């Protein structure tokens, strides 16, 4: 059996979700009623029997540590392998790039009993079968495999995604940084497969020459020297880069087909276990087209919404087209539409919040 090392790289996270990532890293943003974004990558790693996972954390990772704990839920509480959270070792200095943080923890790579490394960001909502990716990596005899997906979201003016150009054999010929995505563009998923020893060698060389960016200085700089193969991911994966896309991609999980595809037809998506009771629907509850997690008590009306664990929707309250994160409290007669409430938000009695075009965010622990 292969020995695979999983790396979740949070160093390149960008603050595109504003208030929601004000106090937490993107990877630990709640998603889909009971998950945090990182659960999807963690579970994809589990599916390929990764025995050791390192999370290169940049900042705001307290909630992430709390969520991941010992890694038990992802079968990572091993004696010698398991889960490692590796923050910057120079917290006072501005980090120069992901390679610097990799280099600072080079011992971690050297010690790992693994020959292959998967590097991925922590916020992709998708089910990538890394068994297939590694198989193709090996059969292509590639040095580095770069995953990409053809852009299927709405066009965006802001330059936010890196783009790959490939030749007819699927070999990566060029990488353009920060492009404005439009349909069909080959968006680099910042997800790679590489042999461990090669990675270590390349990190050392880059640091020697003051180069600190994995994609730029290891991948792009070596397109002519190494075999850099593209892997097109064709599965479902929403592109999340704004509050609107975050809201919309949550809502897509109300499509039973996507729900089944994600949670019933293939490997499981694991998350932190909480001992919440089953969701309670009162006699007065009216729920339609919604996800309702455990620990919720629903007395009011919920339509087209994602309700996380431990939320209370009181009598006469109405929640439409909204995302209510953990332990939210929607009091009697409140009416909210097109709203994202962060954790532990209270919407007080008879309060009305309706957003027209863009979803409104109510920040964590706010009493509105």
């Amino acid at each position, binding site marked *: 059996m292969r020995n695979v090392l999983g790396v979740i790289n949070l160093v390149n996270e960008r603050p595109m979700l504003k208030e929601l990532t004000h106090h937490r890293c993107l990877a630990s943003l709640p998603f889909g009623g009971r998950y945090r974004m990182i659960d999807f990558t963690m579970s994809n790693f589990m599916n390929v029997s990764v025995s050791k996972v390192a999370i290169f954390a940049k900042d705001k990772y307290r909630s992430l540590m709390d969520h991941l704990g010992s890694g038990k839920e992802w079968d990572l509480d091993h004696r010698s392998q398991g889960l490692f959270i590796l923050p910057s070792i120079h917290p006072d200095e501005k980090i120069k790039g992901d390679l610097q943080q990799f280099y600072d923890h080079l011992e971690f790579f050297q010690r790992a009993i693994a020959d292959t490394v998967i590097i991925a960001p922590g916020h992709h909502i998708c089910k990538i079968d890394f068994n297939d990716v590694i198989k193709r990596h090996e059969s292509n005899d590639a040095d580095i495999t770069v995953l990409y997906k053809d852009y299927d979201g709405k066009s965006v003016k802001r330059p936010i995604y890196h783009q790959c150009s490939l030749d007819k054999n699927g070999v990566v010929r060029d990488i353009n940084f920060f492009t404005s995505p439009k349909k069909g563009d080959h968006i680099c998923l910042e997800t790679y497969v590489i042999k461990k020893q090669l990675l270590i060698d390349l990190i050392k060389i880059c640091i020697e020459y003051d180069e600190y960016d994995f994609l730029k200085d290891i991948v792009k700089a070596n397109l002519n020297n190494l075999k850099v193969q593209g892997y097109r991911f064709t599965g479902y994966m929403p592109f999340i880069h704004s509050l609107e896309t975050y809201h919309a991609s949550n809502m897509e999980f109300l499509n039973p087909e996507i729900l089944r595809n994600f949670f019933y037809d293939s490997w499981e998506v694991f998350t932190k276990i909480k*001992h919440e009771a089953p969701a309670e629907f009162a006699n007065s*509850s009216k729920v339609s087209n919604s996800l309702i997690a455990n620990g919720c008590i629903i007395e009011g009306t919920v339509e087209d919404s994602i309700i996380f664990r431990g939320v209370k929707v009181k009598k006469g309250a109405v929640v439409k087209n909204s995302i209510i994160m953990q332990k939210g409290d929607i009091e009697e007669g409140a009416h909210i539409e097109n709203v994202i409430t962060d954790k532990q938000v209270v919407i007080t009695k008879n309060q009305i919040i309706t957003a027209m075009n863009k979803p409104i965010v109510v920040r964590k622990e706010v009493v509105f």
Partner: protein
Amino acid sequence: MASKKWIAMLLAGGQGSRLGELTSDLAKPAVPFGGKYRIIDFTLSNCTHSGIDTVGILTQYRPHILNSYIGNGRPWDFDRNNGGVSMLPPYQGKDGGEWYKGTANAVYQNFHFIDHNNPEYVLVISGDHIYKMDYNNMLEDHIEKGAHATIAVLEVPWGEANRFGIMNTNETDQIIEFDEKPKYPKSNLASMGVYIFNWKHLKKYLTEDEQDTSSSNDFGKDIIPKMLKDEAKLQAYRFKGYWKDVGTIESLWEAHMDLLEEPSNFKLGDPNWQIYAGNANHPPQYISEDADVTQSLVNEGCLVFGKVDHSVLSYNVQVGSGSIVQNSVIMPNVKIGNNVIVEKVIIGSGTVIEDGAVISDSKKGLILIGENQRVSSESALLKAL
């Protein structure tokens, strides 16, 4: 020798034959309850909340599911270096071995386990009751009264007292007499099957009881009466709160319906007294556009397209569109097809109800469907128990 203040011995060996097909493959304490739990979770969680760190679980009948469910006891915080949870099935010794003959014999056969932990007190509980109880208060009472043994009791309606083991007490709640299911009860204090013993005192009685060939080796029938005869100090501890023996299909159904009362006298979602369970991982529950869910508990992994009223849906239950589920208890992994009617039914795990089936008793009796069955619209069961 290291010693402990107290340990718990949890009786989980019963077959639970009165639960019919629900226990054909698993012991009674392992029967699913409340949408996401198994019956034993309630006593185990009581132990955790009471700060007990060592629990011996006495198993005998069909222990496999229970064994794998309990595992190292992690969900209940029993994965510890000192103490934890131990599964105690019957075993062979130098002089052979034998099955557990009764509740007292089961504990007797494990006196090495208890001695090894060297506790001052032993809490004996059973894994087939639904209640939330802090055993600390009972222990404090036991110590304060200087009792040899304390038995938790519950005031039951006088009309039902003849169904229970009844404790007759004096004005200080000392037990003077024990009546098993008395025709004419003198008291309405029913034993909850929760005992605290002084281990040294109990050990003597268990050893003597072993020598007595006429004994049925049972706590209620033999040990307690013998202690009373010897004028040992037996104290009743009055428990106030919800307690339910779920040993029959009817009581199992009733206990589920109790969870749905508004307001409920037994809440599962009490943040100060969570019921811990060996959680499997399931996606959040999806309630479709045409679904209608009222006065119900719905656990993770459920996909609901039909109408669910006054019912409990365990994990991974699917209810197809046009179907109606009412006053029912649906155990894990049950698939209910489209246009099905399910009324006052307990459906065992893994059963499939095909499209168009009608499961309802004309006299509104309770219907039980076992595990892993397939019910088609032709074979619809209409008879109650």
